[in-house]
């Protein structure tokens, strides 16, 4: 494309974007209910008040997220490996991994949280914690491990069988072939979908509030109820987005870097 061609297409993109934005703003602000919506969702004073309390509550979301993420990476990998075990001897373990993934991907997260958070403590078994934050986090770990194990499995299966065959022919045991040849390639390939699941996890930390802990979404509900104004929800949405965007850009960067390296290696995989 010539230089003028590039300039022209940039200008067209710019004009189109501006017109689109202007139209969107006009449509929304000219809607008959806009003044009411503005008052309810974009109230400056409530916005300022919300900023004083909601970020503080958001620390709890981040804590849940960080703790859960570490466990999910480990548990999910374990399940994916179980499911990839070859041979008839390991059938029970493979079946267990399949049942696990089916069960926890099938049941809505909100129900798992309810059942564990209120159900297990109701058993009154001595020695079993009844802390709601503990069970809320465990529920998230169980659910997301099921998703992430499938991501890992997709990665493991995407590594060509010849890779493992080559490793075995070099004298590596099956375990070592998995550890040093298959997994490193598998994990690299699934980094984007992994991070995708973690963005989902970040948002789902809000579900733990069902059990009582006051995190960002619950705090915003408290603010909404005390002001009868929805602006605190907007504040919470912005905070969640602010955390998600860097993660999304990191994913993009990792993918781009990976591609660059593969191309540098002459396209070899």
């Amino acid at each position, binding site marked *: 494309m010539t230089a003028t061609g590039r300039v022209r297409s940039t200008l067209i993109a710019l004009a*189109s974007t501006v*017109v689109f934005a202007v139209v969107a703003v006009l449509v929304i602000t*000219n809607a008959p209910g806009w003044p009411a919506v503005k008052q309810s969702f974009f109230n400056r004073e409530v916005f300022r008040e919300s900023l004083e309390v909601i970020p503080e509550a958001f620390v709890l979301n981040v804590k849940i997220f960080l703790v859960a993420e570490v466990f999910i990476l480990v548990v999910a990998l374990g399940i994916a490996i179980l499911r990839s075990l070859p041979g008839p001897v390991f059938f029970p373990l493979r079946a267990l991994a399949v049942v696990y993934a089916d069960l926890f991907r099938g049941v809505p997260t909100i129900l798992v949280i309810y059942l564990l958070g*209120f159900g297990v*403590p109701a058993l009154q078994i001595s020695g079993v914690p009844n802390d709601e934050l503990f069970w809320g986090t465990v529920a998230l770990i169980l659910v997301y491990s099921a998703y992430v194990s499938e991501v890992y499995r997709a990665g493991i299966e995407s590594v060509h069988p010849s890779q493992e065959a080559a490793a075995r022919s070099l004298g590596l045991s099956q375990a070592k072939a998995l550890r040093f040849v298959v997994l490193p390639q598998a994990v690299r390939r699934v980094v984007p979908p992994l991070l995708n699941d973690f963005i989902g996890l970040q948002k789902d930390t809000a579900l733990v509030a069902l059990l009582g802990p006051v995190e960002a979404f619950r705090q915003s509900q408290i603010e909404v109820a005390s002001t009868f104004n929805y602006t605190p929800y907007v504040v919470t949405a912005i905070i969640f987005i602010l955390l998600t965007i860097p993660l999304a850009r990191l994913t993009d960067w990792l993918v781009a870097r990976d591609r660059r390296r593969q191309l540098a290696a002459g396209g070899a995989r």
Partner: protein
Amino acid sequence: MRKLLTLLFLATLLGVAAGCGGDDDEPAADEATPTGAVDTGAAEPDPCAPEELTLVTDGTLTIGTDNPAFPPWFQDAEGAPWDPTTEPTQQGYEAAVAYAVAEELGFSDDEVEWVVVPFAASFRPGPKDFDFDINQISYVPARDEAVDFSDSYYDVEQAVVVLKNSEFASASSLADLADAKLGAQVGTTSYDAIVNTIQPDQDPSVYDRNDDAVNALRNGQIDGIVVDYPTSLFITAVQAPNATPVGRLPAEGQEYFGLVFEEGNPLRDCVNAAIASLRDSGALDEIAQEWIEGSAPPILE
């Protein structure tokens, strides 16, 4: 060719914008009509006569409440929680008040219709599909900006419910509750009472629904919950028989339940007159005696 397409695209967008700009004149014209009708109505001798009222459905008083509606506020013939989509009931405090208000306004029992309105939807901005909502909604000045409240049909006190076998079952003052892990439903004055009145050392737990708070209480995840006193009667009678209301809280200002109207609904003045009349005649006290009885626990100071 591409240039032409781009131009077409932009032209279409602008056309949409122009179309929308034209549209919003119409609702403004619509709004003027009901206001005019109300003005004419106010000039009539009795603006509160059923045929003069601007109602959701003409000739019918449409009342909202949540589903299910629990005793002692609503109950069906068997004394179980009432489903507003089934046969109407006059049993329960709010049911009785709703029908008493309807009668004062001049509606027969057959002219009362019920609609299901979840608590959170009762204060959503915009038009309402009920004439008024009766759902234990406490008056709070900030809430009044989004909807309109009637005068009080029930003055509320908060109560602390704890397990009978817990160390807090013998609490006789607010100080005795300082170490307690307390819980309440989100967005309620019960939550405010924990934060402002009891001021415990631990942060309270907050739940979507009272049922969840009761569950957490039964599991020992929290030491006590705060609810309004009539609800505490239901909880200790039905949901958690091993719990007891240990005390009521000093009233913070004048907390009361009000009927909720769409912002600016002129029906409110007529309903306020009806409530005042019920209060003066003692009818409201009688309804309270009938449905919300029992020996109340002490006020904790």
